[in-house]
C-alpha cells in the first residue's frame, strides 16, 4: 500500500498518444516505477480515442487508491498570460488576474475557467494565468466521470511541459519547448520573468513531411512570440527543448535546428529521477523516455516538485475520501482502543471505588474501638487478678521470714552473757499489694546491754531484710529491764 501523496501517476492524453509515468517520492529522491504509451491518434474521434486510451491505461496499470492521478486537461483554445505584479495578498492577486484576463479576453466569466500560479518574489511576483473554455473543461470532466475514469486533479499540459524542462535543466534563461505529438503540439515559451503556453492543433500526423512540420512549427513559434510576449523585451531562447513523439526520431530535431537555428535538446536520460534496473511496469522502451515530458511534468506536479503547478479541477471526491481511509482507519483503531481503554478504566475505577472505604468502615472503626476498650478492661481485670494472686503468693515468704528473723536474733542472744535479754513478742504483718510486709520484734533487755545492743541488733538483721529500724530503749513492763523494738521490712 502506498502512503498517500508519495506515489503519483502523471497521465497525458492530449496529443494523440497517451503517455503515463508512475513516480514515487522517497524522501528527497524520485523513483520511476513504470511508464506507459498508448497511441490513439488513428481513432476517428480523438476525444473518444483519448477516453478509450485512458480506460485501457487504467485497466492495465490499475493505480491504487493512494496513488495520486494527475491528468492533463486538453488545452485547445486556452489562453496563457504572465503578469508581473507587486507583492500583495493572494485574494487581491486573484481579483487582479480575473479582472485582467476577462478584460483582455472580452469573455463572460462564467464561460472560462481561470486559474493562476504565483511565483513569489521579494518586491514583485510573477502570476502565470491560464483561461480554459469552461464548456470544454466541463465536457472533459463529464466524460471522465461517465467512463468512471479516476483522477485527482487536472493540470494544464503546457505548465507540465515547462515544469519538466525546469526540473531536468534549470537554467533561468529564455528557452523554447515544443511537445510535438501525433495530433497536437504544446508550445512553451519560458523566460526568467514569465511563462507562456500555446496549444497548436498541429502534429506529426497532420503534415506529409518532417521538414514541412518544422517549418510550420517555426512559423507558429514566431507568431506566438509576437502575440504572447510583451513587446518591451526581446525573447532570445538559448535552445529548443523537444519532447513527445516528435523527439523520438532525429529527423524533426535536424529540421528544427535548420529552420530555427537553435540547438535542440532532447532528454533521453532523466536527471534526478532514479530508474531502477530491471523490468518496470508498463509497455515502454528506454528510447521512449524522450517523449514523456508532459507526463513527467504532470507527475512532478502531483508530487509537489513542479515549478509551475496550476491545478485546474480537483478530482473525484470518492478518491479523496478513500485516500483518507488510512487516517480514518487509524483514527477508528485508536478510537476502538480508546473505547476498550475507557471500558477497562471504568471497570477498574468502579472496583477501586467500591473497594475504597468498603463496608461499614465507621461502624467497624467504632466496633474496633469498643473492642479495644473491652480488651483494655479485660486486660486490667487480668492484671488485677494476676496481682491479687501474686499478693497472695507473696504471703508465703513473709510467714517464713519469722524463722529467719529468729535465727538472726539467736546470734545476738548467744552473745549476751549473763545479762537478761528476752524476746517478748513477734508481730507479723504480711505485705499486701503495694505494701511490703513488716516484722516487729519486741525485746526486753538488761540495761547493761544498752551500750551496744542497738548496733548488734542492727548488724544482725542488715543484709537479710530490706530495712532495719531498731528502737529503744524504753521502759519495759518489768522495770528492771529496758524495752527494745526491731522493725524489719520484709523483702
Amino acid at each position, binding site marked *: 500500500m502506498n502512503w498517500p501523496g508519495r506515489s503519483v501517476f502523471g497521465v497525458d492524453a492530449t496529443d494523440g498518444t497517451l503517455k503515463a509515468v508512475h513516480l514515487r517520492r522517497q524522501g528527497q529522491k524520485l523513483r520511476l516505477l513504470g511508464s506507459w504509451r498508448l497511441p490513439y491518434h488513428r481513432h476517428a474521434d480523438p476525444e473518444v480515442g483519448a477516453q478509450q486510451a485512458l480506460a485501457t491505461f487504467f485497466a492495465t496499470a490499475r493505480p491504487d487508491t493512494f496513488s495520486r492521478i494527475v491528468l492533463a486537461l486538453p488545452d485547445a483554445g486556452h489562453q496563457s498570460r504572465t503578469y508581473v505584479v507587486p507583492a500583495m495578498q493572494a485574494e487581491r492577486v486573484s481579483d487582479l488576474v480575473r479582472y485582467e484576463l476577462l478584460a483582455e479576453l472580452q469573455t463572460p466569466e462564467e464561460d472560462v475557467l481561470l486559474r493562476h500560479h504565483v511565483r513569489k518574489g521579494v518586491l514583485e511576483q510573477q502570476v502565470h494565468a491560464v483561461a480554459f473554455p469552461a464548456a470544454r473543461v466541463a465536457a472533459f470532466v463529464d466524460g471522465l466521470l461517465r467512463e468512471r475514469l479516476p483522477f485527482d486533479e487536472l493540470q494544464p499540459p503546457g505548465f507540465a511541459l515547462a515544469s519538466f524542462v525546469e526540473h531536468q535543466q534549470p537554467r533561468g534563461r529564455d528557452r523554447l519547448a515544443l511537445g510535438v505529438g501525433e495530433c497536437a503540439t504544446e508550445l512553451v515559451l519560458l523566460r526568467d520573468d514569465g511563462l507562456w503556453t500555446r496549444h497548436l492543433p498541429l502534429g506529426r500526423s497532420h503534415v506529409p513531411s518532417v521538414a514541412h512540420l518544422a517549418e510550420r512549427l517555426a512559423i507558429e513559434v514566431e507568431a506566438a512570440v509576437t502575440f504572447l510576449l510583451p513587446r518591451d523585451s526581446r525573447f532570445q531562447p538559448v535552445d529548443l527543448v523537444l519532447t513527445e513523439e516528435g523527439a523520438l526520431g532525429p529527423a524533426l530535431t535536424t529540421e528544427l535546428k535548420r529552420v530555427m537555428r537553435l540547438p535542440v535538446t532532447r532528454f533521453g536520460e532523466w536527471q534526478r529521477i532514479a530508474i531502477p534496473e530491471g523490468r518496470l511496469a508498463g509497455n515502454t522502451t528506454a528510447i521512449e523516455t524522450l517523449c514523456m515530458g508532459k507526463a513527467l511534468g504532470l507527475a512532478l506536479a502531483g508530487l509537489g516538485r513542479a515549478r509551475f503547478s496550476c491545478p485546474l479541477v480537483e478530482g473525484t471526491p470518492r478518491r479523496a475520501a478513500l485516500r483518507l481511509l488510512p487516517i480514518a482507519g487509524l483514527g477508528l483503531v485508536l478510537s476502538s482502543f480508546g*473505547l*476498550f481503554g475507557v471500558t477497562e478504566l471504568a471497570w477498574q475505577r468502579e472496583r477501586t471505588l467500591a473497594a475504597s472505604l468498603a463496608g461499614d468502615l465507621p461502624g467497624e472503626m467504632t466496633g474496633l474501638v469498643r473492642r479495644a476498650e473491652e480488651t483494655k478492661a479485660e486486660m486490667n481485670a*487480668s492484671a488485677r487478678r494476676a496481682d491479687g494472686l501474686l499478693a497472695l503468693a507473696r504471703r508465703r515468704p513473709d510467714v517464713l521470714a519469722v524463722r529467719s528473723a529468729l535465727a538472726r536474733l539467736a546470734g545476738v542472744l548467744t552473745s549476751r552473757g549473763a545479762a537478761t535479754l528476752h*524476746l517478748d*513478742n513477734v508481730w507479723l504483718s504480711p505485705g499486701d499489694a503495694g505494701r511490703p510486709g513488716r516484722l516487729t520484734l519486741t525485746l526486753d533487755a538488761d540495761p547493761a546491754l544498752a551500750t551496744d545492743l542497738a548496733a548488734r541488733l542492727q548488724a544482725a538483721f542488715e543484709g537479710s531484710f530490706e530495712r532495719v529500724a531498731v528502737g529503744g530503749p524504753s521502759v519495759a513492763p518489768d522495770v528492771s529491764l529496758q524495752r527494745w523494738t526491731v522493725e524489719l521490712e520484709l523483702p
Partner: protein
Amino acid sequence: MRLFSILVATLFLSAVVSFLVAGRPALQRSRSEHAALLARLGSLEHALQTITPVSYAEAEALREERSRLDELGNRRLDQLTDARHLPPLPGLEEALAQTDLEALGEGQPLRQAIVQWARESELASACLRRLLADLAATGSAELEALQRLEQTTLQLEDFDGIGFELVVLGEMPDVLDLLERFVPGRGEPVLSVTGASLRRVEPGLWSTTPRQLASPPVRLWVRLEAYLRRPIRVGGG
C-alpha cells in the same frame, strides 16, 4: 483494502458494543460508587470526630497483652493450688476423731461450732479440715480459741475466701511449725496469714539458746484466710 476496512469496522464495532454493554454501565456504576464513597467518607469523618481510631496492630497488641496476663494469672493460680505431692484432706468427722485437743473434745462448744461452720459451706468445711489436720500434725500445740471472720483482705475472682482467727499455745518449734503451715502453695484451700503474733508466756523462763526457745510455752495468735477455687459455671456470665 476491503479486508482492512472490514477488520477496522469489526474492531470499532466490537469496541462500541463493548463500551455500550460494559463500559457505559461501568461508568454509571463508578459515578454511583463515587457518590457512595463520598457518603462513606462523610460518615467516616463524622465518626472520627467522636472516636479516636485504634489500629488493628494496637488492638492485636492489646489482645496479646491480655492473653499474656491471663496466662500469667493461670500459672500463678496453678502454682498456688498445686497439690500433687500432698495427701488428700481427711473428712471433718475423721479429723475430729483423730484430734486429741482438749478444746475439741466431745461436747466442747468449739467442736460444735466447727461442725456447725462446716455445714455452712464447702469452703468453711475444707478450711476447718485443713486447720484440724495441721493442728494434729504439730505435737504440743493446744488450740485455745478459734473464731470465724466475716471478711477477707483479698478479693480474688478465682477464689471464694473465708477468714479465721485462732490462738494456739505451744512450744516455740511447734507453733512456728504450725505458723509455717499456714502459707500458700500447699494445695486447696489456699491458706495465708494476714497477721500473726508470737508472745512468750513466761518471760522469766526465757532460755539463752535458740534450741532452748522451746522451753517456755508460746502463745500464737494468727489471723488467716482460706481460699477455695470457685466452681466453673458452664455458660455463666
